[in-house]
């Protein structure tokens, strides 16, 4: 039985109420941000400061009001506290800005913070619902605060210059191995308790140049050293602590083993002269076997073409991209050595960079319980490298 009153309620009211609910749910306050009251954080650098932390935040500011007249203007502010959260509270206290991490796309760990315990520093970001866990994360040489505050030679904000290093093109070149907060956390909290991050270094440009903003002032502007950045090395982590840094050639080998590389280059030799090869196909992997004791097969099969010789060559040779057998053999040697060195280096550091403990855990709980502490020292590597020419 339905009351007459209810029957007369028009359908329009239904639609109106539904519209109000949809409006309230999905409006997101129209995405409006009061920039005068909000610190839009682009990047953070975390360093140890005594028993606590020093947090350097790079904050976007309205254009034209600060150092630059175009692009992205930013200011860097350093705050200190017992925890990262305290540092952000301090930031709000000293600037009056409410820190907003939604746009934060880069977290850099200083060397001390990374060596002591990366996840103590990252704890706040893992808990924060408003922090995108897809943000890039890296370790750096020295202080993260100095890196974040440094003047980039190629961009207005250092963080924007650094994130360019982690573009898809860079990943495919094999030159760098970016990682996100989410994936780094999964690797750490998984059975392997290991992980890796790109290791950043600032490289000061030769000679001191004028800062981008200073050049507009005309005559006598502040001289700021400008930097470019490199992320070709890879920091290895075990139980959350930075334990070693892989050189560029081992970073490249790890990229190859992950099957990431397309159009990346590496050098081999022909009659003692350098020859650069381009990787066109990369099929790499690490497979664990427990038959007759633990062993790992590190296999690489790459298809290459000749990219460049270090010497002048006849035009017929320039027109051909066929890779001579001698170069292929040299390339196999180079890659095998890099993979072998990578394996031994990560093993010595106690970093399960190939996630072998995780493989064992997923395949057999019983064997994992038996081997989890002794797997890395006991494992025997078998390296299989095959380099073939595209033609």
């Amino acid at each position, binding site marked *: *039985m*339905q*009351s*007459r*009153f*209810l029957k007369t*309620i028009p359908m329009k*009211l*239904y639609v109106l*109420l*539904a519209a*109000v*609910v*949809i*409006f*309230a*749910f*999905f409006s*997101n*306050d129209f*995405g409006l*941000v009061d920039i005068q009251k909000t610190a839009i954080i682009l990047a953070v650098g975390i360093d140890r400061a005594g028993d606590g932390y020093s947090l350097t935040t790079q904050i976007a500011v309205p254009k034209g009001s600060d150092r630059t007249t175009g692009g992205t203007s930013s200011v860097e502010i350093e705050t200190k506290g017992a925890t990262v959260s305290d540092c952000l509270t301090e930031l709000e206290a000293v600037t009056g800005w*409410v820190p*907003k991490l*939604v746009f934060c796309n880069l977290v850099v760990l200083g060397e001390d913070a990374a060596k002591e315990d990366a996840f103590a520093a990252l704890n706040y970001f*893992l*808990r924060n*619902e*408003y922090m*995108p866990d*897809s943000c890039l994360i890296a370790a750096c040489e020295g202080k993260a605060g100095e890196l974040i505050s440094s003047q980039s030679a190629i961009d207005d904000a250092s963080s924007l210059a650094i994130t360019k290093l982690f573009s898809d093109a860079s990943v495919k070149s094999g030159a760098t191995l970016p990682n996100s907060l*989410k994936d780094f*956390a*999964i690797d750490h*909290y*998984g059975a392997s308790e290991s992980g890796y991050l790109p290791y950043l270094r600032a490289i000061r440009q030769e000679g001191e140049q004028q800062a981008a903003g200073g050049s507009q002032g005309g005559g006598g502007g502040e001289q700021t050293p400008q930097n470019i950045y490199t992320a070709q090395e890879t920091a290895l982590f075990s139980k959350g602590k930075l334990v070693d840094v892989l050189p560029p050639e081992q970073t490249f080998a790890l990229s190859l083993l992950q099957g990431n590389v397309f159009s990346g280059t590496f050098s081999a030799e022909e009659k003692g002269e350098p020859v650069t090869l381009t990787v066109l196909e990369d099929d790499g992997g690490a497979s664990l076997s427990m038959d007759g004791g633990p062993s790992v097969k590190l296999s690489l099969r790459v298809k290459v073409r000749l990219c460049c010789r270090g010497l002048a060559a006849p035009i017929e040779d320039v027109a051909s991209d066929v890779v001579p057998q001698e170069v292929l053999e040299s390339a196999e040697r180079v890659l095998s050595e890099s993979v072998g060195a990578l394996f031994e280096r990560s093993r010595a550091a106690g970093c399960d960079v190939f996630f072998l403990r995780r493989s064992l*855990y*997923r*395949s*057999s*709980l019983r064997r994992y319980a038996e081997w989890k502490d002794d797997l890395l020292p006991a494992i025997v590597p078998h390296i299989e490298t095959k380099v073939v020419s595209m033609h």
Partner: protein
Amino acid sequence: MNRISPRQLFFFLACVAPVGKIVLLPARLAEFAKNDLIFPAAVHFLVQALLVFCVLLLVKCGKSFYELLEDTFGKIAAKIVICLFALFLLFAALLPLLEQKLFVQSVFYDTLPSLVAFSPFFLFAAFLCAKPLAGFGRVWDVLAPIAIAGMAGVLLLSVGSADYAALLPVGAGKAGFFEALRTAASWFFDSALLLPLLGKIDYEKGIAWKGTLCYLAGAAVALFFLATFYGVFAETSVNQLFAFTKTSKYFSGITVLGRIDYLFIFALALVMAFYCAMPVQACVECVNEAFGRRPYLPTLLSVAFAAILFTLSVLLDYRFGEVLFAVTGALVWVYPVFTVLVPALSLLLRRDHAK
């Protein structure tokens, strides 16, 4: 016509009912059962499917739940039972409601919005609940394609980021299996939601097994979502509240296209808004029937219940953790009583003559 057709019922069982299980439940399951999170959920789905079958067997007699109780126990006892059942429905509405509120505030807003953002829901719920329960049939007709599109979109954008090997080894989370089973009970009350619908569903041959199959189909999708969720977040799943809003954001195209997954998340959020209101409306229907279907009673009840829930949501604004702890802990025994025992025992009620 205020009747629910079998098609509308099947839409609810297959498309709407599973949506309520993909907000906070996945993280709670991962907390206890770890990579085995799909097993406790599967047990609950199977139990509920069996009970859905039992409840739908009662459709044929054409009586409402209250009439069945009245014919078996008499008026007084029937009133007591139905009021207790209505109280349970109001209690069961609390968790999805607070869950939805927290989700809207956390996911759809970059900073914590004022209470105003969620409060229109109660106005909406009050209006919706004043309508006859059978009116939900038409709502399900509309919601089913929205739910299908939302779920399909979220899953399609998520599967590429999932490493399903993270679900291995089977048995790693067996120590927390029973704890997960106990905690998850608070999210499974679908068979209880069907009881107030009795007497309002058009009978068709085979409605019980067809309805059960539809429920199992929806359950399969929900379980696949759980597997995908764990595949995306692995060991960090326990930290990922509002599961369905998170799995799709790692889709590679999002860096180019922006958060297109929000379209599907909005669709599912819309379905959830109705799902949250359903226990309240079922509660209104139960009380209304027990007290003789007086004019204005549904309106008064729906306003009163919406006001109660609004007050609770204001009072418990920053106490969701405590509510969750209580509802999935000390008070969790309430759920098996009303979502397992009552639907199962309802088969014993007298249904010898049709109304």
